Structures are given as C-alpha cells and as structure tokens.
C-alpha cells in the first residue's frame, strides 16, 4: 500500500506535467490548426536556456525567469511569426511537416550547441522526504504536483473568468464567429502561442530535475503530450488535462509492475487502444464530416 501511494503521488506529479504540455498542444491546435510536432522539443529547450543563464552567473530563480522569457520570445513569438504564419496559407499538412523539421532542428541544435551529455538540473527544493502514512514521498514530487495544480487552476481562471480568456476560447471554437463579434482574432491566436510557451517552460523547469536536461527529452515528452491530448479528446482542453493525469499515473504504475525493457511501450499501447476503441477520446465529440 505504501509503495502504491508513492507511485500514485509521483504519477500525479508526472501526470500534471504531461497535462501542462498537452494543454498547450491542444490550445495551439484549437485556435490555429497548428499540430505542433515539436511540442516535446519545446519542453526540452527551456531547461537549456535556464542552464545557460546560470552558467552566465545568474542565480536559479533569475535564470528560471530568463528561461521563461526566452521561451516566450523564441517558442512563442518567433515560432508563430517565422514558421506558423507563413505556412498557414498552404494548409495543415505543410505546417505539420515544418514542425517535424523544427523538432529535428531544435533537438540537433541543443545537442550541438550545448551538449550531447545529460545535464543535471537544479531541483526546486533540497531532496527530502515526507512520510505520509507509511509511504515515503519526496517533497520534490509534492512541490511539482503543487505547482502544476496551481498552474492548471490559474489556467482555468484565465480561460474562463477573464475577458481575454473567454475571447481566446471563442476564437478557438469558432474563429469566424469570433471575428464577427469583434474579437481581435489574430491577437488571441498570438496569446495562445505565448501561453503555450509559458506552459512548456514551466513544464521544463519541473521535469528537468527528474529527467536531467537531455537533448533527447523531446521524444518522450512530445509523445506523452500527443497521447494525453488524444486520450482526452483532441479538441478539448479539459480532456488534455485529464489525459495527462491518467497517462502519468498509469505510466508510473506500469513502470513498477511491467518489465523495464518495455517501459516506454505502455503509453503507446494506451494510444493504440484509444484509437481503436474510442477515437474521439474521453471527452471529445465525434467530429462531423463538414462540407
């Protein structure tokens, strides 16, 4: 029972991080038809921004802020302006291919311009343990969980209780109608990109102490984001959160009970199962074939 609680807590922590990544991914898809294949690399990169800032002498908290800022500029603004906007006129497929190329570009850039070795990343708290019932739970896990939950709550408040958030949602659901209602659609789309950049940066800072900062992190994290988004229902933000949490918990549990050789296979099997039996995901709607 004790180990189950440990697994559950660390699973929830991982799941919360997956949720953040998946939400950003889903938002991008909803508002601008952008399937960002480089989402995993987007999570991999900010950690290197932080490390670079620290190498330049900044204390961790400052480096983290710099990392988030750089993420907003590069993974938010530059991504939108240089890659997405010029490609949108050609349709979804060329854009997906561009993001595939981008993922390769970012991964190799991190490898060549920073390091191919895994880099240790500072934890947010010194490694101590708390005892809950009989279980030993690391404070790191609890803190990650807390920050991720706070971020999700903040996201919820932003999207549902603020004017800008509601405008963003309207833009996501029906851009034409939103435009007619006077919502500055282009600006809302930009905000979505910026929001995604913030989310991936936070996820990066939370996940890198555990995974270390490696240029290959993007592969697993990206895959987790896609699977979480699909489990939840491709076009549902709440679904992405649910999918991320489910994936994190199941992934952690499976690691304990399934051979380590096939560790990475479990999420993939979940994906295939969802596609086979409930392709619209848990919260998604069956899509209409539109004219």
């Amino acid at each position: 029972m004790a180990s189950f609680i440990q697994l559950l807590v660390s699973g929830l922590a991982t799941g919360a991080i997956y949720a953040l990544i998946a939400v950003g991914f889903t938002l991008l898809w909803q508002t601008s038809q952008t399937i960002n294949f480089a989402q995993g690399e987007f999570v991999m990169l900010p950690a290197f921004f932080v490390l670079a800032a620290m190498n330049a002498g900044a204390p961790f908290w400052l480096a983290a802020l710099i990392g988030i800022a750089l993420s907003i500029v590069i993974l938010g603004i530059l991504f939108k302006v240089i890659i997405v906007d010029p490609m949108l006129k050609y349709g979804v497929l060329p854009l997906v291919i561009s993001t595939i190329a981008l993922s390769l570009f970012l991964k190799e850039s991190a490898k060549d311009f920073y390091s191919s070795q895994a880099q240790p990343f500072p934890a947010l708290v010194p490694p101590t343990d708390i005892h809950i019932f009989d279980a030993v739970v690391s404070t790191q896990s609890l803190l990650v969980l807390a920050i991720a939950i706070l971020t999700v709550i903040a996201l919820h408040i932003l999207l549902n209780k603020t004017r800008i958030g509601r405008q963003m949602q309207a833009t996501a659901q029906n851009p034409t109608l939103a435009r007619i209602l006077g919502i500055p659609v282009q600006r809302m789309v930009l905000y979505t990109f910026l929001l995604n950049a913030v989310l991936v940066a936070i996820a990066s800072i939370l996940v890198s102490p555990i995974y270390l900062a490696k240029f290959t992190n993007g592969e697993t994290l990206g895959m987790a984001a896609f699977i979480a988004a699909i489990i939840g229902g491709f076009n549902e933000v709440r679904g992405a959160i649910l999918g991320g949490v489910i994936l994190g918990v199941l992934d952690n549990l499976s690691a304990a009970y399934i051979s380590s050789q096939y560790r990475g296979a479990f999420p993939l099997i979940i994906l295939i199962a969802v596609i086979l039996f409930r392709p619209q995901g848990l919260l998604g709607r069956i899509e209409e074939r539109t004219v």
Partner: protein
Amino acid sequence: MTRVGIIAVVVAAVAAIAAPFFLKPFGIFLISTWVVLTIAAIGLNLTLGYAGQISLAQGAFVGIGAYTVALLTPLGVPFFAAFFAAGLLCFAIGWVLGYPALRVQHHYLAFVTLAFTTLVFLVLRNEEWLTNGIYGITGTQRPILFGWKTNGARDFYFLCLGVLGLLSLATWWMLRSPWGRAFVALRENPIRALSLGLDTRLYTLMAFAIGSSLGGLSGALYAPLVQFIEPNSFALGLSFNLLLMVIVGGSGNFFGPFVGALVAVLLPEWLRVTQSYYLIIYAAAIMVMMAFCPSGLLGLAERASRALDGRRAVTKTSVPTEGAGP
C-alpha cells in the same frame, strides 16, 4: 511530361547504368543505398504525396522487411520468397494500423505511426531470442538469380536497380489507372471525391498499405546490402529521413523520391566538413523549403521549365493542401 523532363530521365537512367563502372566500391555502395532508399521513398510518396497522410513508420517497415529477410534466408528460404513475404507482411501490418487510425480526422495516422515505430524498435531491441537484440544480425546472403551470383558490389547494384525499375513500372501503371486518378482526387478535393462515389477511406488505406509494403521491400534489399542490421538503424531517425527525402524531392511527383533520396544520400558526404551539423542544416532547409516551395526540388524545376516554355499553367501545390471548400 515536358521534353526537358524526358531528356533528363533518359540521361539519369544512362548515368545510373554506367555509374558503377566508374566508381570505387564505396561509391557503388552509396548508389546502391540510393536505389534501396528510393524504393522506400516511392512508398512514402504514395502515402504522403498522393493520399495526403503523414506516416512516421516507413523506417520501421524498412526494418521489418530487413529482419524478415535476415531471419528467413539463413533458414533456407529462397531470397525472393522472403522478399515477397516482407512486402506482404508490411502490407498487412499497414492495413491493420491504418484501418482504425484513418477513421478519424486530425492526422491521427501520424501519431499512430510514431507510436508504432517506437514499439517496433522496442521489440527489435528486446526480443533477443528472435532478433539478437542490439547485437544485430550479420552476413545476410546476397541472392543467386538463375545462376547469376550477386555477391559483388556491382552485381548487387544491378540487382537492386532492376528491382527499382520493376517497382517503378508497377507504380507508374497503378498511377495511370483509375486508381491514380482516384489518388489525385483524394489529394485535391476529398469532399468532392466522396460525393462522386469514391471511397476515400478505402483508397487512403490502400495507398498507405502499398506504401508500407514498398518500405518492406526496400528493407528486404537493405539487409543483404549492408550485411549488418541492428535496431537503431530503423528507429525514428530513418522515418524522419525518408519523410524529408520525399518532401525535398517533391511530394506527389513521380520522380520526387528519386531526387530526394539522392540528396539524402549525397548530402552527408558533401557536408562532411560540417559533419555533425548536417542534420541541422537539413532540417532548416526543409523549413525554408516548406515556406517558399512546398512542392520540393522537382516542383521548382517544373516551375522553371514552364517559365522557360512560356506556358501558363494551373498552380500546382504538390504537398496536399486541404481542399478548397465552402
């Protein structure tokens, strides 16, 4: 095809036949690699350029084909039986994979094939009793065809070239038939195609399955070519590489895969100075290309030759874009 195009193809064919007589063994190995990868690229071109679906599993299919041949031939199975088995197996797997994934929109096939590639890698690596795991399989024999031993570099090259020729012919026949017309319809305007009785799901699935089987056939030649195969060769990197080949060459263009594969094989050699940066340059070039000429190198060539011809033409977007709809 324009006259310039026909001349170019003839010149290229002559060059392909003459080349091995002027090249050292490593050079022959390079062009053999080009031939084998072109077969896989032709398959992916069917899936992407004609049916408009992204497959990130073509590398995995090459791997499945390679391991099929590498495991069957030492058991005494004749090479070409294993060759066809590889193709058939990949067709079946492609069908099974594509059937559920293509029921949905949103390019689910891309994610399913991504997951599949990783799964295949894990199986190849872990099931040592079958695949020898990370130690790989060495020494796959090159076949003897009606008494003609293909062990030598030049001989095996001609075998591969012959297979490429036959498969290209078969693909060309398919594209000239009503199936080819259906594929164009699929790519240009799937909604209209549906209303004309065209079962878009079936044709897309067929294109993906055939494309995947071509990947398997490519792998079947790859194993005796390199004579050492291991799981890492067929991981996501190869699938990415094949995808980029098809794009660079010009997706949806019949000769695109030939050009794209040539670039992919020669580029690392040319960029040897910037050895490890070649992937970055390649990826950056793709992004630039998608922004300015999504129809690839051959698309550029077509535009240039039309400009020279002075003919007006309907703008061709070879990378399938969403059909103009109401």
